[in-house]
């Protein structure tokens, strides 16, 4: 089946540059090749884009037929465009988990860590590449959702532009949230080193807390005040317009966070997951 080459070693040194060495930019390139050469990544990206646009269109068509909105509103357009994130965040989280757990389940991690024995740069490069890809895909999805729903709303005279006040910043927040969700999943996947376990935990954090907290707060009232600080509620805040409370006014407990604060909360969740992952990656035998 396979024709064997004569094992001469003479031409070997020719194609290996003598200054070949480990650098962080080389590592980013390697992780990019790894991420984009898997079918699961391609499917995840297609699913994020398609589901995002599809759900937004469905929402626009349904609300138009009900005449829910009668005047142009940036907030309403934003709701339409970002509604697909509730599904997209699940795909992003799973993609993040698989980016590292797949290396453990297949044994690839041993190849990876022999090429990069200092280990931590691998996690850093993987995080940056996964975040970058998913955030970019998120931005494309959100802009495409806006473009796809624009004609529907324009026909009713309620369309708002891409440059409407606060809109671009909000969808950038939404895209960043999607990227951070993947990075959070990556950290969890690196801690648990298992695809099934990792997916279960990230879904528990993203979806499970939304079921648990409202129920638990019936018995323990103050738990309701924690709800804005959960991963997906803080993420939803990142993709929304700043509240129009007068300066100095205190928001009600349990009210959605300001976008910047939502961003910090999501960043904190992600940092904790990656910090634990880093400690364990350094310590454990591969």
């Amino acid at each position, binding site marked *: 089946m396979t024709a064997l*080459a004569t094992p001469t*070693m003479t031409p070997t040194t020719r194609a290996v540059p003598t200054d070949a060495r480990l650098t962080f930019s080389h590592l980013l390139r390697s992780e990019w090749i790894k991420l984009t050469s898997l079918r699961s990544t391609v499917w995840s990206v297609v699913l994020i884009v398609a589901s995002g646009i599809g759900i937004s269109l469905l929402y626009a068509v349904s609300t138009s037929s009900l005449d829910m909105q009668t005047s142009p509103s940036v907030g309403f357009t934003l709701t339409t465009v970002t509604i697909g994130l509730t599904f997209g965040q699940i795909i992003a989280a799973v993609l993040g988990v698989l980016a590292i757990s797949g290396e453990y389940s297949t044994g690839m991690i041993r190849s990876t860590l022999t090429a990069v024995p200092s280990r931590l740069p691998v996690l850093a490069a993987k995080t940056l590449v996964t975040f970058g890809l998913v955030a970019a895909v998120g931005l494309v999805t959100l802009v495409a959702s806006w473009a796809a729903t624009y004609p529907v709303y324009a026909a009713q005279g309620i369309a708002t532009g891409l440059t409407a006040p606060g809109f671009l910043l909000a969808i950038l927040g939404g895209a960043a949230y999607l990227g951070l969700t993947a990075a959070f999943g990556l950290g969890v996947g690196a801690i648990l080193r298992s695809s099934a376990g990792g997916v279960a935990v990230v879904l528990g954090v993203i979806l499970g807390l939304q079921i648990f907290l409202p129920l638990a707060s019936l018995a323990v009232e103050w738990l309701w005040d924690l709800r804005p600080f959960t991963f997906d509620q803080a993420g939803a805040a990142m993709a929304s317009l700043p509240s129009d409370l007068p300066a100095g006014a205190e928001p009600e407990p349990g009210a959605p966070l300001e976008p910047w604060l939502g961003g910090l909360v999501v960043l904190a969740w992600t940092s904790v997951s990656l910090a634990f992952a880093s400690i364990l990656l350094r310590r454990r035998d591969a």
Partner: protein
Amino acid sequence: MINARGLTKRYGSRTAVDGIDFTVEPGKVTGFLGPNGAGKSTTMRMIVGLDRPTSGAVTINGRPYREHSAPLREVGVLLDAKAVHTGRSAYKHLLAMGATHGIRKERVREVIGLTGLESVAGKRVGGFSLGMGQRLGIAAALLGDPATLILDEPVNGLDPEGVRWVRTLVRGLAAEGRTVLLSSHLMSEMAQTADQLIVIGRGRIIEDAPVEDIISRTNGTTVRVRTRDLDALTALIGGDGVTVSRQPAGAAQITGATPEQIGDAAAAAGLPLYELTALTGSLEDAYMTLTADAVEYRSTSPEEEPAR
């Protein structure tokens, strides 16, 4: 050059590697032998930093592996064929591995050609046979044109042609002055490939010597003779430490005397010899003797099982 000093690995109360010292020198093929569970793989994993030693240290060219700025140029390693993502093609796997060091696709194609993987390079690794996976592992090990190669069971699953190719490759790499550490359970293959042997059992080093020394020292010298009058010959050479075991047709195997001693004694007495042959045992015999006390997982032959 690989240098281990007091290298120890414990998993809980079990000691996998027990304070071993060894040196693997460049320009030679060093065979690493031992029964299953003896600590070979753990030692190899510690050399490349996958496992952290409980105590002791191991260096490659004077430095711990993780301190090298270009690890893939320093060491090429094949630990097991299952160190590849099954969803990625062989080409992309090698490309991603090489990319960590800025090694380009020309070199990737070169190692693909070298290992005979051209026809399957674009296919996903999940569908590879054991032999193809092994070739891919060897291709990855060669990627950085490394000065040291560590190959754990490289011929496992290869066809006879592949086995011979690995032997030639490994000998060639050592002849170029590289350091080669190789493990295998195929004793005949090891006898043909290795110059030096390190035998490990229960986490300790049992032997560390050139192959010929190990074989002759462990097996002793046996001489096969055939003569008309075996009793006379026995009387001539008999003495302390000499044993004669008789075989059919006037032949015997003698241990404890060299062919020179036997031939001289027979000639002096005018006793004609029809045959005088020095027998060196196989590496397999020597290995079995050396590791007899160190086998962790012993299989029982059917006849040893109690009758029902």
